[in-house]
């Protein structure tokens, strides 16, 4: 499985754990997961920490815009980039 797929899988798992399988169907991938109420900031951080540990990434969001990195697609992109950097 590619890294991007693994990241996607980890986010899916967290969303399913909170909201059930059907959440992935109705999900708007550009919306902030936090503003839309799907995850609160604690869920979001704990999910990031899990991804960081299990995929051995080093999260660096220093220059990142929260509007971008809290969305489903933005997060996957940023995490994939920080792994390749």
């Amino acid at each position: 499985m590619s890294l991007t797929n693994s990241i996607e899988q980890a986010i899916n798992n967290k969303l399913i754990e909170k909201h059930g399988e059907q959440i992935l169907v109705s999900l708007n991938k550009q919306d902030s997961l936090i503003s839309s109420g799907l995850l609160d900031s604690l869920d979001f951080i704990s999910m990031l920490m899990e991804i960081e540990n299990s995929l051995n990434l080093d999260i660096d969001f220093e220059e990142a815009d929260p509007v971008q990195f809290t969305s489903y697609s933005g997060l996957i992109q940023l995490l994939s980039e920080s792994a390749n950097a």
Partner: protein
Amino acid sequence: MKLSEKLKNSIASHSKLPAILVDNQYITYEQLASYANNINTSEISDAEQVGILSYRDAHYYSTVLACALDSRTFIPLGVKLPIARLASIIKQGNLKYVLYSKKYLSISQALIKALPDRVFVCLDDIVNKSIVSTKSLQARSLSNIAYVLFTSGSTGSPKGVPISIANLKSYLDTMCESLPLSNTDKVSQVFDPTFDLSMHDIFVTWLQGACLYVVPETAIFAPGKFIKQHGLTVWFSVPSTASIMAKLGMLKNDAYPSLRVSQFCGEPLPRTLALQWQKAAPNSKVINLYGPTEATIACSRYVFDCNDDSDSSYIPLGKALKNMSFDLDAQGELLISGPQVFSGYLNDNIKTQQCLIKTNNITHYRSGDLVKRDAQGVFHYISRVDDQVKIQGYRVELSEVNTLAQNFLSNPLVQAIATPIQQPQSLTLFICNPADKESEQTLIDYLKQQLPLYMVPKKIIWIDSMPLNSNGKIDKSALHTMTEK
């Protein structure tokens, strides 16, 4: 000089300078004052107190300024609170008028249904237009209360904390003296209006002609980029925000050279985090503030020194602010006295008598915090005397959650705890008697209708028997152990 006079002077001397950046727009002191004047001459002109149903938008700040200039009490109404709780606050606060932003029309409509005798005025209709009220302007009695905030109450409903203009002025005089700002300072505003630390941001900034930078909702959670983009010079947040920034890689060495003052308040500040912040903001003083809402925003401070080799894991509370005094009772509970101490809860003499005690003609506020004083006279936090906890800076009485859950389930064996024990982030509710388990979702739904979201338990754990300590009380440390498994 009166607080309103001081504000007027500051507006006059900084009229063309920006008072605030909010929703991507700078508003000058002159402009903000004209918005405030439009509010004060509208149909609320004779109201002694108003509720504000808006959230960190230009309307909200204009209304706060309007009230401060015209000695009118304001009560911030949290737009994220359930309708039942808002209605209870409006009733307790005896609010005839509620000013709302159009954005919260649906909340105000729900409130009108529940409280048909109150007047709801849309701020969008009055802020920009100067429509002088058709009512004859009658002399009204000026309020001596600046604002009322509602905090978690142990009996199941929120309790009102009125802070007088004199209380607020005493705090602001001390702060403006110890934290002088210039008209080039850029001050953060991240706190929720229902949290009194937001009053610090607003008034300390405006009294000194600086500019308030309202961090957008989407950036509050991770404000690193916002601080850099605008070159903020003064930061103020709960330690939890800094801790999230650390986890996101936003506290790298020298990340925020523009900051010259960084303040934290609302919950214990871990030493490792203070050090990390100091390295990220090398030109900044790092200051820990402490104080209950009842003693007006904050009443002690400690300036962090990264060369201090103390082995305590948290930064001390520091020493009492000028004009304030700290004493300890026999149990080690901190007693606070001085001009910032409030005069009692709204409509609740019993609670007032429990927390305000008079000795030698001096009124002391019982803080409920057990502290110790070290050889240098610096105060350190130990623990609470009761079951109040802090969730990301918000005060929560565990018994308020317990009472609501007990009544809903008709089951006395219910106990909420704040987890994780070191730096609580959310509540976990233990319920004994698994037979009720199918009511879990309805209980959560009910609590959501009654409580702010940070008070709704994130996790419910059903247990066969409630652990008791040797006094026959629920053993909370045993419950904490269960959550750590």
